[in-house]
């Protein structure tokens, strides 16, 4: 039978064909390009247009970048070296590097202090940012950091930050003692204890004030450059989170008066541009303070920016509170928890988790907004560029290098934070989908 079969079919292949490579158009880079760049006519045109745009941008930018001069005393020297060729005069960055970073008045020999504070910032932020990857012991350092950084940057008697810290410690101890009795007692007791500590500490510091301190005191008027942006950004964001939580809770509260106070505050702050608040800090606030008080400008600005940021963070957290299922509140009630306990143990941990991406967004926006202080004659990075650097005879006319540098610095920081926020969002997705 097998024979017949063989005869009826002229040829039967009994071995496998060797594997042929897929058609050229269906593999590797060609397939990828076909699918991603030239899938149809419109797409092809778009691709070509995009390529043209990229070429145009790079053909202007790259020669400028690679032909740049990094070492010259002035823009005229730069032009002489370049002999009319295209090229950036990056010498301004090397020449004024310290001024751009630290402002023009921070003492040269103390530059290591803010630099160290900046490096330590990462160590302090790590336990908060990566709680699962960093030993918890480092949290102590995070708590210590604000005082350490204050002392490093401002200098002066070491007792001031020590007493600042002590106030918090005393407050915490009192709170721990009293909170079992009632939350309110613990809360207000802690505040009073801390205030008393600071008051006594302030007197001691004043009494012991000596000219010879380990780190020379630097007045805050001398802060400037990118350091000022960093200081304003970190200080205001970290201060505004507790205020923001309080405002958000107040706005969600059942007590109408407290609710309306919070609503008015939040809506007022969100309704006006930051720049008008800075005007207030700069030209109006002094009239509202007791005569003889001299706040320095940086402190007034910190207060205003913190108020500004608190209102926005409050709205983000309110969103988080509203997004929690009602069952969580009811569950807390049914366990017999009172309001502070319910908030502290059940509601806020979840609400804050939901709000973290929003808070990071506000923080990035706020950090960018710190450049506005240049409008009220503070010499932050933008203020330094528009003021002392561009006004100087040597560098009058070096715009692109300076503005590009400022843009780059902000981009690196903000893009880094937003990438972190996206990573965190993925980490925090605990619910099952």
């Amino acid at each position, binding site marked *: 039978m097998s024979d017949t079969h063989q005869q009826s079919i002229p040829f039967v292949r009994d071995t496998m064909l060797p594997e042929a490579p897929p058609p050229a158009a269906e593999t590797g880079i060609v397939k990828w390009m076909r699918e991603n760049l030239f899938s149809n006519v419109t797409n092809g045109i*778009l691709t070509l247009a995009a390529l043209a745009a*990229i070429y145009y941008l790079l053909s202007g930018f790259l020669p400028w970048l690679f032909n740049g001069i990094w070492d010259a005393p002035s823009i005229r020297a730069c032009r002489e070296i370049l002999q009319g060729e295209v090229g950036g005069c990056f010498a301004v960055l090397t020449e004024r590097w310290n001024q751009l970073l630290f402002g023009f008045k921070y003492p040269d020999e103390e530059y290591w202090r803010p630099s160290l504070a900046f490096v330590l910032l990462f160590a302090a932020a790590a336990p908060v940012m990566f709680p699962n990857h960093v030993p918890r012991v480092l949290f102590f350092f995070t708590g210590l950091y604000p005082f350490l950084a204050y002392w490093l940057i401002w200098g002066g008697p070491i007792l001031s930050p020590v007493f600042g810290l002590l106030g918090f410690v005393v407050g915490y101890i009192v709170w721990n003692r009293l909170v079992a009795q009632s939350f309110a007692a613990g809360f207000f007791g802690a505040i009073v204890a801390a205030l008393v500590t600071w008051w006594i500490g302030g007197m001691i510091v004043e009494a012991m004030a000596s000219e010879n301190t380990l780190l020379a005191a630097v007045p805050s008027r001398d802060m400037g450059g990118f350091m000022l942006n960093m200081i304003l950004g970190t200080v205001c964001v970290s201060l505004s989170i507790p205020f923001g939580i309080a405002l958000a809770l107040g706005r969600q509260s059942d007590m109408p008066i407290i609710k309306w106070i919070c609503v008015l505050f939040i*809506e007022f702050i969100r309704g006006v541009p930051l720049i008008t608040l800075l005007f207030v800090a700069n030209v109006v606030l002094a009239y509202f303070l007791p*005569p003889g008080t001299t706040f320095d400008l940086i402190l007034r600005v910190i207060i205003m920016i913190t108020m500004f940021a608190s209102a926005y963070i409050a709205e983000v957290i309110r969103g988080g509170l509203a997004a929690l299922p009602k069952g969580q509140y009811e569950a807390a009630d049914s366990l017999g928890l009172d309001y502070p306990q319910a908030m502290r143990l059940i509601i806020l941990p979840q609400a804050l988790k939901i709000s973290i991406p929003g808070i990071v967004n506000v923080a990035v926006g706020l950090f960018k907004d710190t450049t506005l202080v*240049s409008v009220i004659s503070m010499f932050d990075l933008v203020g330094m560029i528009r003021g002392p650097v561009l006004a100087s005879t040597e560098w009058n006319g070096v715009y692109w290098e300076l503005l590009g540098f400022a843009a780059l610095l902000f*981009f690196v920081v903000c893009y880094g934070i937003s990438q972190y926020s996206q990573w965190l969002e993925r980490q925090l997705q605990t619910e099952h989908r």
Partner: protein
Amino acid sequence: MTTLSDPPRESFRLSMLINDTRYRSYTFQFIALLAVIALFAYLGSNLMYNLREAGLNISYGFLSEPSGYDINQTLIEYDSRSSHWRASVAGILNTLLVAVLACVTATILGVIAGVMRLSNNWLVRKLMAGYVEAFRNVPVLIWIIIIFTVMTAVLPAPSAFRGDDPDRTMLLDAFAFTNRGVYIPKPVWLEGSAIVVGVFIASIIGMFWYRRYATKLLYDTGKLLPMGWPSLAILFVPAILAYFVLGRPIELDYPALKGFNFQGGIQIRGSLIALWFALAIYTGAFIAENVRAGIQAVSKGQTEAAASLGLRPRRIMNLVILPQALRVIIPPLISNYLNITKNSSLAIAVGYMDITGTLGGITLNQTGRAIETVLLLMLFYLAISLAISALMNVYNNSIKLKER
């Protein structure tokens, strides 16, 4: 004998203010109110004391006095003899002008970039991602300054257009790009132009009527009328006809170099362009993200369902995806508009004479009335913000999913 169900009446004790939850909230509210009042009283008394010490007073009388300064761009009649109040109004109009221009441009840019970020073209997708990240992560103040520097330092001065063999020439003899701004032709409305404009407005109404009719016809009978070309025809043909029939009543006034500057035409100042474009491009990046998120929020099943019904891709976008995506896109869009309006106060960095430049700038400097001017300034922005938020609430309510 009264009812037995009455709870035993406890007499009110002072400690109940703290310990009884019924009264505790009153205590807290009372304390909060007192604290706020005390704070304001404290600040107010300081203010009174400081003003008395300095011999100053709070008075808005300066608003009616002549301002004494000139404003280069005004939408209303204004000169240096006009009052500070009028200067403020001119500033308000300038703020609104740049805000509206920037909102429109930012929306267009943002929608294009947002849709293109979802394009299946890899290069375009990456390019748009680059645009969004680059602009979102750099302060808008820096962008304003950069674009302003482009406007003033890169574009040529009007003198470059002068002479028999000028370095630069005008584009089409109608547009001049100088570092004092862009000059474009200005329409001159002659007699009869009102009719042309009237016809044009009528065509706009007609176009909308036609589209509505076509939609209704589609829903009622399933008959599909063409939309695109007829709409355009209705929009333009009658107006163009009227224009020629009436003997070209609208002429263009071309800018020409005369004296120090270009004369004639419309001058769009560099400061306006810098502010407008910087705000538009910066906010456009945020809007692009909103648009992308909005489109991605519409579940893929919707697209597939629409496709299985036989709709063409463009109709899927227009009839199925966008209406649902808009619900997600519009609320953040409006808050972006709010941000544009508030960020337009950065005009002060480039000398654009908005309300911050006139009332909060020169008027404040000249009169020294810091408290009054800053207060007015804040009230203005607050009013705008509240108006826009009210609009947003109305919209949110109207699109809320009506569950039946």
